[in-house]
């Protein structure tokens, strides 16, 4: 499989006055064509920021992001590859659809970024109705407003909007977190089918480990802006290496998980930690003195890597 996206030592800091926060620290990640890469981590870990840098909403402070071999950001400008080639579906379909636009206008809006010929070609009535049907909506829904739909239906509208430009890559930022379990299953099935039909590549951002396990081929775990572990989904679930990944997996309130020994965060450390220390030091149950200098991210196997001294 070819590499579609390549993050190379990407940093992102946000500033406010003299304060600054490093939302993403030295992120390295490759997304292969046709795969689903999952990003997990707690709120504020930098998952969404990473996704936003791909769609042009945030600019990386350092490092480079390549899409099909060409840099996405050049001299502080977002270099759109082919308009509409990268699309996104957000978490809350309540706020991501303009309440004053009809469904038809919402779905067709991304085409405004395209040239007039392509716009006509892709925005044809026939194509629009078949797309509506494909995502599980009806043609007569086109003239309605978002408030007339349920949460699941609205997310289907958002998916149709992402697909209208025929993208090759979609950032899915918590696409089912606002949905009920039964509807979540419908939407996940749809996303999986669409991926296979259209040979799409997904970056799937979620805090729900069960959803990630079901959807993704590769998983990257983030903690305080750093990717602390990444690897093939199955391997990561069966033998997690980083203490944070282990805690994350053992906190899953899954009904089917065997109730084995549960790993928890350590009480905050009394030790002085500097900038240099591992980001997880304060809560790590296995911390040691060496961790006061952060470990580098190292490969264990070709695909599985971790940033921890105990495993590296």
């Amino acid at each position, binding site marked *: 499989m070819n590499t579609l996206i390549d993050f190379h030592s990407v940093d992102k800091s946000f500033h406010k006055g003299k304060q600054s926060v490093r939302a993403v620290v030295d992120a390295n990640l490759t997304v292969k064509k046709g795969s689903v890469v999952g990003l997990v981590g*707690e*709120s504020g870990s930098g998952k969404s920021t990473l996704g936003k840098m791909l769609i042009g909403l945030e600019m990386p402070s350092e490092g480079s992001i390549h899409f099909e071999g060409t840099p996405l950001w050049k001299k502080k400008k977002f270099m759109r590859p082919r308009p509409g080639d990268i699309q996104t579906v957000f978490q809350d379909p309540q706020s991501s659809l303009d309440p004053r636009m009809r469904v038809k206008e919402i779905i067709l809006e991304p085409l405004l970024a395209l040239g007039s010929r392509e716009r006509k070609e892709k925005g044809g009535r026939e194509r629009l109705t078949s797309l509506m049907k494909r995502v599980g909506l009806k043609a007569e829904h086109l003239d309605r407003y978002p408030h007339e739909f*349920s*949460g*699941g239906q609205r997310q289907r509208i958002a998916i149709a909007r992402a697909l209208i430009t025929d993208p090759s890559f979609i950032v899915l930022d918590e696409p089912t977190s606002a949905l*009920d*379990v*039964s*509807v*979540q*299953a*419908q939407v*996940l*099935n749809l996303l*999986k*089918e669409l991926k296979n039909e259209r040979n799409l590549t997904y970056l799937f951002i979620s*805090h*729900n*480990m*069960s*959803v990630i*396990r*079901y*959807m993704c081929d590769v998983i990257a775990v983030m903690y305080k802006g750093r990717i602390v572990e990444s690897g093939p*989904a199955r391997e990561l679930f069966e033998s997690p290496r980083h203490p944070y990944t282990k*805690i*994350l997996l053992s*906190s*899953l*309130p*899954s*009904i*089917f*998980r065997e109730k084995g020994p*549960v790993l*928890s*965060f350590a*009480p*905050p450390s009394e030790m002085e930690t500097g900038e240099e220390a591992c980001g997880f030091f304060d809560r790590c149950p296995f911390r040691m003195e060496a961790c006061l200098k952060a470990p580098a991210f190292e490969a264990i196997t070709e695909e599985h890597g971790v940033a921890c001294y105990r495993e590296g």
Partner: protein
Amino acid sequence: MVLVLKDLCVDFTGMRGKVRALNNVSLSIEKGEVLGVVGESGSGKSVTALSILGLLGSNANISNGEISYSGQNLLTLGPKEMQSLRGKKIGMVFQEPMTALHPTMKVGNQLAEVIKRHRSVSKRQACKLAIEALKEVHIHDPELVAKKYPFELSGGMRQRIVIALAMSAPPDLLIADEPTTALDVTIQKEILQLIKELNDRRGTSVLLITHDLGVVSNVCDRVMVMYAGEVVEEGITEAVLNAPSHPYTEALLHALPDLADPGEPLKAIPGEVPDLQNRPAGCAFASRCPKAMDICGVSAPALELVSTNRSAACWLRRDTH
């Protein structure tokens, strides 16, 4: 029994007419028991909690049924009597810890205020008890945290403080409505452990409302599954989750991605929850039910005992009884 609901019906009057939000809901909680109420949005979980607390809006009407707390019928109480019950006898924890706390008041003072009101102690003593209460919800360095404002604390810390507030009276019954939904999984686990621990140590009964079956399996003794404003199944948690009696419970469990093979599609429940304005004549789940029979579309089954400790509202279970 700490709390008993019998055939409770709640109607809401809106612009498009009347909607029945709860239809003959019955439940009971024993002393020291944790009862989980699960269901999807619109199933009536939160309305159940609000009606117990007497916090339904003016557009709601309890048209039938009884709510009795320690033998006392709550529906006959006036607003003042309800007020003295809330917080003191029945504690509450809601989903969003930020909106439940006073934003411009230090958390220690908020706690002390509540303690002073419920326990008739001096101000100084209330402050001391507030620190104790913070310790009890496992807050390190309670003296420091007591001097902070809610916005200075993380979501998990805030929810701990809300729990400390709810438990300060101390109540006999704690109603927790999606207490961990706004929190990260790792924090969620800690909060659930805390609720379970307080339940163990103090014998407080808990009504835990959630949409997450995983949460139920971790902390609840018994579980009640709601669908479209009705109770469809009720029983011991482990038994219900391992061998559900109602097709809806079964479908809900199968729709979870937890155990699914990534190569297979998830078993989604087709269709959507019926419009409560036009409640179908028969069973509310019939149109989505893979096992629906002719009778299901005509007549709604009542919740009945199907085996020891297990009730279900399903025609399929009638023969086995």
